[in-house]
């Protein structure tokens, strides 16, 4: 039993970024836009945060300030990149899957390109010290994640803004007819998902590793996307889904502490989160719970 408690900090460390991204994806889809660029946006946030932090660290800035600024820059850049997707999907009626994929490919290139220019290598320079855990061994990212979940619940269900946003995803025609600006709402949602993904990317790189490489995000953005679907587009469900997937991913680390499992090659544990995600999608395909108008371009006047 104490072993499970011992696992908790590692699990939380891994769950936090996935959960933050998933909440962003949920808000985005609730407004009617599917954002598969979460992966690329996390990468951009991670690279920005890692690069910013190592540069500020080198210039002698106090540690916590550097971390704070690095995360902030990560979320700002994530938000900026998501504007591309927003413009394409909302104003230009582009195929949302294609534009999202394009951003993923672009992010792949831009991050390493920037590293080449800044550090003359295909990765950012290693920083000396990332985030530190608190007395319980938990990273601040876990608390950030919880705050994000609570804020999203409040935003979506307790104030008129959230009612309007959800209406845009269910029946944009109805929303437009009562004077809600569907385009503006969707822009907010997409940028929110970009900001959160960028923040989450920064969290990944500052808690789980020492630099950004092309392998840093490794599918977390897509796992977050699956968590939205598996969690049936509700904050509590998405939290549960993220916990499930994060635990699967944490297993690789945890397995080292369990003698019986140490004999298996590490690759088996690497596969686990992806297989679990796949199984979850098959067993609990919750297509019926998706916002009715998610993924469809909204054209004014189309009833």
């Amino acid at each position, binding site marked *: 039993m104490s072993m499970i408690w011992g696992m908790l900090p590692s699990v939380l460390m891994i769950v936090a970024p996935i959960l933050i991204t998933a909440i962003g994806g949920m808000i985005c889809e609730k407004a009617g836009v599917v954002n598969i660029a979460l992966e690329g946006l996390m990468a951009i946030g991670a690279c920005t945060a890692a690069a910013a932090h190592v540069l500020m660290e080198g210039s002698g800035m106090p540690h916590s300030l550097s971390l704070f600024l690095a995360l902030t820059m990560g979320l700002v850049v994530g938000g900026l990149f998501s504007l591309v997707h927003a413009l394409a999907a909302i104003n230009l009626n582009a195929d949302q899957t294609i534009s999202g994929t394009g951003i993923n490919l672009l992010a792949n290139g831009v991050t390493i*390109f920037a590293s080449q220019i800044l550090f003359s290598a295909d990765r950012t320079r290693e920083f000396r010290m990332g985030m530190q855990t608190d007395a319980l061994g938990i990273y601040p990212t876990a608390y950030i994640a919880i705050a994000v979940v609570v804020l999203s619940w409040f935003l979506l269900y307790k104030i008129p803004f959230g009612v309007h946003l959800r209406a845009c995803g269910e029946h944009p025609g109805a929303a437009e007819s009562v004077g809600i600006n569907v385009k503006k709402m969707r822009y907010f949602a997409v940028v929110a998902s970009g900001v959160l993904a960028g923040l989450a990317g920064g969290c990944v790189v500052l808690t789980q590793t020492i630099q950004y490489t092309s392998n840093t995000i490794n599918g977390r953005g897509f796992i977050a996307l699956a968590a939205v679907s598996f969690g049936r587009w509700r904050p509590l469900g998405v939290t549960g889904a993220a916990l499930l997937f994060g635990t699967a991913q944490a297993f690789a680390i945890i397995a080292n502490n369990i003698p019986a499992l140490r004999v298996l090659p590490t690759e088996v544990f690497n596969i686990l989160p992806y297989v679990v995600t796949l199984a979850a999608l098959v067993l609990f395909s919750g297509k019926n719970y998706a916002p009715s108008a998610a993924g469809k371009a909204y054209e004014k006047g189309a009833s």
Partner: protein
Amino acid sequence: MKLSRQKFIQSDGAVSVMVVVLGFLVGTVLVALVGKNPLNMYKALFQALSGYNIDNGRMNVRYIAETLNYSVPFILCGLSMGFAKRVGLFNIGGEGQYIMGMTIAQAIALLGPRIPVMHWMFAMVGAVLIGSLWGGVVGILKAKYEVSEVVSTIMLNYVALYLSRIICLQLPGATTYKTANFPETALIGNAFFQKITNNSLLNNGIFMMVGAVLVYWFIMEKTSLGYGMRATGFNKDAARASGIPVVKSISISMAISGAFAGLAGGIVALGSFKYGRVLSGMDNYGFDGIAVALVGNCTALGTTLAGLLFGLLKNAQALMQGKQIPKEITFIIQGLIVIFIALRSALKLYQEYLDKKQLQKEVGV
């Protein structure tokens, strides 16, 4: 005048060319912005295409052959994505199907019977089969359980990567990054090519690729199977109501789609390398195949041309790096191209806007 402009916007080929040009333009600007000389980028591209080095006036045929060789997996992965897209599916699992194809080809090469010709044929068939299995699973999940192929293919990509490691680490002579050398009977190299192209890696894979392109075109445009698939891709409901077996069409198309990517993996494994590789990361042909298919508008000819372009880009990377231009600029250009393709619908909006203005003029507003 108006008619030709309208025809231009509606012509997919023209749009593709425009999109590529735009992508390069932005890439050029970016290179200049970070203080490098964009001209070097174009010199590298030119050398990769023609073999002619502008700086020192020397000609090396090998570059042309390498461009052709690199384009083989791009074209095949483009066919993979394109075939699925025609049926309405977004198969971004080409990477995983490619990896599985490569892995099985490597396994058969090292463990299979060393009979000339039969050996590499078995390996290739194995690659195609495992690729179609890896793709077919996605099709069934989508058709029967409505699981989004976008997420399932990505998951299977990572499963393939780690599964490949598990398998390859068990192969004869395996170290952390390679296996023992392949027996001669398993390789698909072509001595004639090697002679005339100054020892490039161009191999028999190119013939298989051409065959694959013809198969793609034939199935899609000429057979009743392709007809049913295209109907399903355009309007799944009408196709189903008209009796077209939609679940079967989707599953078969994903299987064929996976087969193309699996073949690509097999060709790269046995054509460009003398030993098996234990992968630590993805080759990215599968992902690039997405851009290839989109630029090529999912047609056989378009995909081939687009694949050649990407082969050119890849071949030029090392040359660019040598001229101080980070090779990642090619990834950026690819990403931009895909985003611009997504904006194809923006062109339609623009056309509607023009039509409306025209109509207003006629009505006298």
